[in-house]
């Protein structure tokens, strides 16, 4: 799977309150959440971001709360992928569970700047920066996570496991 878009660069320790402030958590609607995505970090982001665009950030992206609204909001904006130096652990799990592609790549996180044209090959974990003519290799996705993605996310994986053990009627 390939994603191409414009990069939006953020700093270190972008917390879930920055991604989607708690004051908007009285809904689970992706479109409503997307309208406030990154609002407190960059008020223009949600109106100017385009489908396929890519968020690039420093270390510990998604730290703070466990709210799955964070990856839902990002996905809701049409952002195709988040590249960071590193991710906070709950956000990392949530992103996979929600089907938001994320890549850990310190080199890309450092080199890419806002406005760069970036292309991501998710299967290979390669990132190409058209604006700077640079190529970066992301950390490989752990095999178990790949299995989750192949199954179609955690719920599909659970469903598959359940059917195998026949704990759930297959209707």
């Amino acid at each position, binding site marked *: 799977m390939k994603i191409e878009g414009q990069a939006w660069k953020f700093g270190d*320790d972008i*917390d879930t*309150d*920055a991604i989607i*402030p*708690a*004051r908007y*958590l*009285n*809904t*689970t609607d992706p479109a409503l959440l997307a309208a406030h995505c990154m*609002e*407190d*970090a960059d008020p223009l982001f949600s109106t100017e971001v385009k489908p396929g665009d890519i968020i690039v950030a420093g*270390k*510990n992206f998604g*730290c*703070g*709360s*466990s*709210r*799955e*609204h964070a990856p*839902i909001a990002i996905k809701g904006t049409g952002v195709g992928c988040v590249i960071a130096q*590193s991710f*906070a*652990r*709950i956000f990392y*799990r*949530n992103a996979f*569970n*929600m089907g938001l592609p994320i890549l850990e790549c310190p080199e890309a996180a450092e080199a890419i700047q806002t406005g760069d044209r970036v292309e991501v090959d998710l299967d290979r974990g390669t990132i190409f920066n058209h604006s700077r003519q640079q190529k970066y290799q992301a950390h490989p996705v*752990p095999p*178990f996570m790949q299995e989750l993605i192949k199954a179609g*996310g*955690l*719920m599909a994986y*659970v*469903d598959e*496991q*359940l059917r195998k053990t026949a*704990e*759930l*009627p297959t*209707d």
Partner: protein
Amino acid sequence: MTSMTISEKILAKHAGQSSVRPDDLIEANVDFALGNDITAPIAIEAFRRSGAKRVFDPERVALIPDHFAPNKDIASAMQIKVLREFSREQHLLHFYEVGRMGVEHALLPEQGLVLPGDVVIGADSHTCTYGALGAFATGVGSTDLAAAMITGKIWFKVPASIKFVFRGKRKPWVGGKDLILYTIGRIGVDGARYKAMEFVGEVIEALPMADRFTMSNMAIEAGAKVGIIAPDGITEDYVKERAKRPYEFYRSDEDAVYESVYDWDVSELEPMVALPHSPQNVKPVTELPEIEIDQVVVGSCTNGRLEDLRQAAEVLKGKKVAPNVRCMIIPATQWIYQQAMREGLFEIFLNAEAAVSTPTCGPCLGGHMGILAAGERAVATTNRNFVGRMGHVESEVYLSNPAVAAASAIVGRIAHPDEVM
């Protein structure tokens, strides 16, 4: 026998294995799972979409409306209704209406529902609070909660452990909050990312349960998966009359392997304050310049326990909140509320012209019950001071222990309790 840490032992037991090592992928049985009014609606939706009919055990799933409860607006009321209807349909034993509820991480230990040796997952990042009981407890997202509600299981990558040794003797007014703020200040908000933090040493061994909960609660603020403390006599005293089912004490082996060890003498440690906008931005209260404030909040899953209210009352007794300050006291559960009332703490708070609220997470996450305007500053006993956390994007939150918060309320700027005592 392989040497293991307490976290590894609990995970091995729940995975049905004789041992586990860091980075192993395991599937663990879950003793207890929880969600709140923000996270559970997404989990319930995923549960329904999956076609599952029943939760794995209606006695081991708790749904707790605490964040935007009492219903702060129509949208929040609708979310809580989702929890209520699901709880009825699934015959969940542990759904708490206003009047019976409390802030989840104060409520569940108090009710004896989460216990030493447990694996607990919660769709709330502060689920790590129960590490104070010697449980492996960690926050997850809503989809992970949905999967666990169906299967009673969850997959984990076994975290490496980091040991934090606290030596010496605590100064007056220095408690669990100060120890954990100091720790986060030293290692940073990703200093324990994906790791198990283990708190040990003579200071921890002498630390009351309430302070232990505060420390474990904020392990997530260093990025950790769990903040665990080996259970002992203090733990036993706390759980023996509360426990609703059997529990088990685990301890790390003497030769267990740690990724790193921090060893600190905290005898000279002063009460600590985390400045905006990060819990790692920590300074001793004695080194702060004059910082005027508009609001004080004493409460939350971090510091809303009875001991915290007693500490605030000790400082506020016979005094008045500064004229330009609003002081909110939020007991974390109904039981704490009632105990505080019986002990006369409300008399002290009300005479001091502080407001006392029914239990809620409320202002901690900028939900309701004390939202900040642009340019306003709060001292709060809560756990996060991110941009906009308690309200307007141009407001500021300073994190402290309850005594510092109470002293600051009286003086109108951030103050050491000694200034008013």
